[in-house]
């Protein structure tokens, strides 16, 4: 499923003293199966942008084309598109409402009008995919669960609709390190298994560097950069000047290089850095 964003502009509350331009002339192309990271300072327009991708917000100008179909044409079937493009909001556990976990996860597929048995199957799959024990939690009230478990249930609620594109707005905000790693691992596993497109909004440069292939950078409503993670994180000065950073390990390598060590500085993970440093040491040893 490809998503093309063309010259997208969004203005909140136009014609009032509170008018503010949240998005300015955004162009973005998301191909089938890609794993994107969307980064930017708080208030840079990330959330506004992703809400356009499944038609929750209407652009003030510009258009969004999904598989060749204009999202804002009168003929667009928004319900179908929202099912194909699953959007997990920030703190999704705040949207839980049913008496049991099973019923809550079933809300999405039921709205799609699927038959009972298919809904049941999808609910089980989705709950297991987020790493919960289906039989143990299905009859519990979602409000008895821990914060991390609630979040998983909420994510399962979106997964149960079998989306082809999954957009996650800071899925790990407010979780402990273990819970954070588990959720991210589940996303990676899910992506491998179902081969879906994923867009991850995050403030953690470490997570972004470790997981995604491509990064889009937002700043004050504009998309100022997009490209492979390596390209993006090479620009240390540019990123810090807009209040963002680069992964600590990338920064370490940059500092080593500044001190005259012969290492490549576009590494993204600790493993890569280790290999790079060992290589440099060996070169030094043999010289």
């Amino acid at each position, binding site marked *: 499923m490809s998503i093309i964003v063309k010259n997208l502009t969004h203005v909140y509350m136009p014609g009032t003293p509170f008018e503010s331009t949240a998005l300015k002339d955004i162009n973005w192309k998301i191909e089938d199966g890609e794993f994107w990271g969307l980064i930017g300072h708080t208030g840079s327009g990330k959330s506004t942008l992703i809400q356009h991708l499944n038609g*929750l917000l209407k652009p003030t100008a510009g258009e969004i084309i999904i598989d060749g179909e204009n999202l804002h044409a009168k003929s667009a079937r928004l319900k179908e598109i*929202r099912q194909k493009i699953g959007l997990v909001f920030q703190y999704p556990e705040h949207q839980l409402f049913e008496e049991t976990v099973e019923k809550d996860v079933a809300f999405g597929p039921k709205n799609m009008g699927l038959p009972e048995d298919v809904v049941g199957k999808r609910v089980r799959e989705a709950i297991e995919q987020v790493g919960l024990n289906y039989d143990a939690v299905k009859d519990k009230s979602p409000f008895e669960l821990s914060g991390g478990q609630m979040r998983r249930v909420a994510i399962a609620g979106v997964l149960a609709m079998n989306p082809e594109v999954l957009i996650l707005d800071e899925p790990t905000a407010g979780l402990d390190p273990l819970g954070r790693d588990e959720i991210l691992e589940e996303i990676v596993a899910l992506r491998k298994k179902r081969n879906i497109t994923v867009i991850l909004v995050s403030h953690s440069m470490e997570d972004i560097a470790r997981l995604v292939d491509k990064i889009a950078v937002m700043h004050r409503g504009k998309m100022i950069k997009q490209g492979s993670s390596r390209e993006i994180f090479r620009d240390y000065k540019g990123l810090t000047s807009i209040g963002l950073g680069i992964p600590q390990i990338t920064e370490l390598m940059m500092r080593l290089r500044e001190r005259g060590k012969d290492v490549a500085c576009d590494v993204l993970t600790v493993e890569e850095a280790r290999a790079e440093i060992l290589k440099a040491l060996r070169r030094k040893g043999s010289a």
Partner: protein
Amino acid sequence: MREITIGQYIPGNSAVHRLDPRTKIIVTLFYMILLFLLNNFQGYVFPVAFIVLASVLSGISIKYMLKGLRPLIFIIALTFILNIFMIKGRILYEIGPLDLTYEGLYQGAFMAIRLVLLIVGTSLLTLTTSPISLTDGIEKLLSPFKKLGIPAHELAMMMTIALRFIPTLLEETDKIMKAQMARGADFESGNIIKRAKNMVPLLVPLFISAFRRADELAMAMEARCYRGGENRTRMKELKMTSLDYMTYVIFSTIVLGALISRYLW
């Protein structure tokens, strides 16, 4: 939902914004009384002059103030229509059993304008006064009645908190609505019963979060040793300035003019 402008505050630093909230409340109160004392069209010159003056001084356009009328158009139209047909007098036109009278038309227009002026004039108060200073003003104005057992401080605090949470709850509603829409929820179609049922996925999370917020707020207030109004001092003491006295003089002139006009015109 963001279309509603009644009760909205537009930040600014104009002369009207800087007035003591007590002045603005008192003036608004007398402005309302004045509207009901006027008995002919010519008299409306005075409140209109007052609104125009306030608009110029506060920098808030009359067009924006009129936006506040939108949700109330129905009530204004109803008043107009009822008056047209219910008042007996010289008949201009007959529609079935209903008589359109000259007096009715006059009275209908008179009432409709009164309502419009009422809404626009009172919205000026909230447009130019932040909720915090508004409740401060109410607290101060009510404090003489403490002896009669009216808990002025507590009332004002409750109002402050309620006002403070309106935008938060609106935002929350918007967010939850979108989250459920992303899961295929439908808030727009169906008959009344179906629609009410469809609101459950919105209302349950909204109530839960409202209670959670209330709980957190109570805790935070206690952690900062809040224990009611007794012996409480404030950071910003309300103070009447020459600006306020000038306002009273100008407003009294308008009221006097209006009262005299009752007998002259």
